[in-house]
């Protein structure tokens, strides 16, 4: 009776935690949910005559593995939430169908089988005198080879992790000298004109004026400008609108000259290039 109650409580807990693991947006929550599942399972192991495994489950899994997960989460960025928009067409539907179908089939299989009352492990552990000694006996006799191989695996994994996680600097760190040289060999040694240098307006989408009063092309954010023109958001200020239009026309002329690619792509490209330049 006690086992049944334990089971039903833990089953509900573990299944809901598993669902939480799958459906929570933040990875940290998922990790915590996994911890809950593991702990529940540890209890279920203990209930099922496997005290050693229950301990190992708590120590190794919940203690070590979960900590590792959390560390990595820290490294990757703990506060980022995943986008829940599915990009692969039909993936969710089919995943649900396949997963539930699979569960259904397994359940059907299990349900079809009729089990006698569990034999229990009392008899098996009797000879060695308890669960742990019995396991130890088996591990160091029948399964000794597998055990040794496992140990080799663990060592290898440890080494592998070190090798993989180690970051090697391939190129020397850029010195100030290098940066300066890169800047002066580039197309634009001086800073790009800031918006509004000689401006009457204090706005990012307002072109700067050069000392002679003409527009400084490079000071206009193309993305913003184009967006405004195409979206019909013409500035109320006629001077501003005229300036933006002038720049855009000049751009269009350049596009035609280079006649490569379609326009939207170039427009998108234009913005980062400008940023890099600055």
């Amino acid at each position, binding site marked *: 009776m006690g086992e049944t109650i334990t089971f039903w409580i833990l089953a509900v807990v573990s299944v809901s935690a598993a669902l939480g693991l799958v459906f929570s947006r933040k990875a940290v929550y998922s990790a915590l949910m996994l911890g809950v599942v593991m702990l529940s399972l540890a209890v279920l192991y203990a209930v099922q005559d496997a005290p050693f495994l229950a301990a190992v489950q708590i120590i190794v899994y919940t203690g070590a593995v979960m900590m590792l997960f959390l560390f990595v989460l820290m490294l990757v960025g703990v506060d980022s939430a995943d986008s829940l928009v599915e990009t692969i067409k039909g993936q969710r539907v*089919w995943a649900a169908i396949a997963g539930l179908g699979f569960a259904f089939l397994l359940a059907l*299989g299990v349900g079809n089988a009729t089990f006698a009352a569990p034999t229990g492990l009392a008899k098996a552990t009797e000879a060695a005198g308890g669960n742990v000694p019995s396991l130890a006996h088996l591990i160091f006799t029948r399964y000794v080879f597998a055990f040794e191989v496992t140990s080799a695996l663990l060592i290898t994994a440890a080494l592998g992790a070190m090798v993989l996680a180690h970051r090697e600097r391939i190129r020397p760190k850029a010195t100030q000298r290098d940066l300066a040289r890169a800047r002066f060999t580039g197309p634009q040694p001086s800073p790009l004109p800031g918006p509004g240098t000689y401006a009457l307006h204090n706005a990012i989408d307002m072109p700067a004026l050069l000392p002679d009063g003409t527009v400084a092309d490079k000071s206009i954010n193309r993305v913003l400008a184009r967006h405004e023109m195409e979206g019909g958001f013409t500035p109320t200020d006629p001077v501003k609108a005229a300036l933006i239009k002038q720049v855009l026309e000049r751009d269009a002329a350049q596009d035609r000259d280079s006649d490569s690619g379609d326009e939207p792509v170039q427009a998108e490209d234009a913005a980062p290039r400008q940023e890099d330049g600055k």
Partner: protein
Amino acid sequence: MEPAEIIQHSGGVIGVSWLMVALPLLGAAILLLFGRRTDRWGHLLGVAMSLGAFAVAVAAFVQLLGLPEAQRRQGVRLYEFIPGLADMGLLIDPLSISFALLITGVGSLIHIYSIGYMSHDPGRRRFFAYLNLFVAAMLLLVLADNYVVLFVGWEGVGLASYLLIGFWQFKPTAAAAAKKAFIVNRVGDFGLLIAIFTIWTTFGSVAFNELTGGAVDGAISSGDASQGTITAVGLLLLLGACGKSAQLPLQSWLLDAMEGPTPVSALIHAATMVTAGVYLVVRSGAFFEAAPTAQLVVTIVGVATLLAGAIIGCAKDDIKKGLAGSTMSQIGYMMLGAGLGPVGYAFAIAHLIAHGFFKANMFLGAGSVMHAMNDEVDMRKYGGLFSVMKVTAATFMIGYLAIIGFPLLSGYFTKDGIIETAMEHNQILGWLAVVGAGITGFYMSRMVFMTFFGKRRWADDAHPHESPSVMTVPLILLSIGSVFLGAFLILDNRLMRFLAPAVGLPEHLPGFHPFSVPGLTTLALVAVGVVYAWFRYGAAEVPRLAPRGSFLTTFARRDLYGDALNEALFMRPGQWLARFAVFFDNRGIDGLVNGLAAGIGGTSGRLRRIQTGYVRSYALSILFGAAVVVGALLYVGNM
């Protein structure tokens, strides 16, 4: 009397009669293999080889005459050609030796003439090589003792003709004419080949001595061969003959063949090769005599061609083409004769030999004129040449008189014989042949009047002169033959009796009736033709540019629309078919294959898209797989 049996023999000159073929062949081989090194003396070698063959032919002829009639068919077996099918063997009998004499005799004269005619041509050595090759092939044709070897020679002369018509290959017209000649000839050869196949499958042999009249009759009477088979053989042989002899409907190549040098026209396209068809029909007499239908077709083809050739000859301003039309017409007479049985054979062969002389004579004369007139061939630019080249003109006139059948000259006897024999067989054919003779009188006179008489219509830079003696001597010799040969061969039925061992002898030997109705009518019609030609071309002014003429003139000028017909019926559809076949091959068959490949490629390309690179898609398919496995296990477990 039936033809005599062939005796295998190898004694005397007849035993080495293969030299007739071998000598010119050797000459050709030397001239071609050693190339420019033989340039200086190559023409002499060519002439020597031809004369050598002539000498062997004469010696063999003499030996043959010395034998009793029953032994006058001598076989010379050289070696096994195609085991089980045919031997390389020669047959020396009166028929073949007559041809051999004509070929080597006229051939040698034309060789000699060519020394002069081709003296300025850089390819003279090559020319003589081809001439020798021709003589060898032609001799193989007539000396062969079975159809397979005959076919070898048959195509050999075709090759020589191809090479010689296209001798000036840099002239596109010459190259095209050569090709045309070969291809049209091949159409005839197609018939000849199938005839040989049929003969082989019916009789199990292709050797002449097993294909006698008796064998053919025996096969028909025993039911081994149907009358239809024999008729088919006859018609197929006729198709072959038509190709080689430029008979309707395969006549179109001959006029174009005049692109070749004039000696070639004289030797191949007048005297010898084009008469091979007549030889074939006469040699295959056994089949034709057993197939009256085939014989009738032969005579119809002959008459049709003799009229067509004559009509074409009337409208040609090109002297060589005029002569070519005349050749067609004269071979039509021979074909007519060859379709009339043993009597006709003799007249046909006689006319053939006489024609060989007078037509070669006239062609060479025409060559001499052209030589003098800077290779001008348009008769409208001749006129009044008699006074400047007397020898050429005189010999040409003799040939002319011979061909129109001027009494007592060669043509008179031989053509008359054919006409009379035809008359006995079929009145319609006979009278048509008479009409043909009249037209002959007209067009030949037209040619003579336009060339040698009337006003001089020469080009400004023309300075005609008599040709050198190396050219005129052959002309004189040939004209002598043109005068006397007819009388010699026909009177006393000399040729008929000589040929008897080869082709058989008719029951009643025909007499010579100089004053029969057809004979007199022929003479009268010829006279009318000559007089009419005199009024049109002798007395009247000949315009330097051809007048447009009536519909009939155009009809004749365009070769009776033979070329147009060929073009419309064969060439255009053929080209269209070839284009379609290429299209079908590229788009149809290859398109199917490539389409299949493209289909598989496209399907793979689309299937490839399943590999999105997304691990999760792959995982999904793994899960599906696992579910299927579990399901299958359950299903199997529950079974």
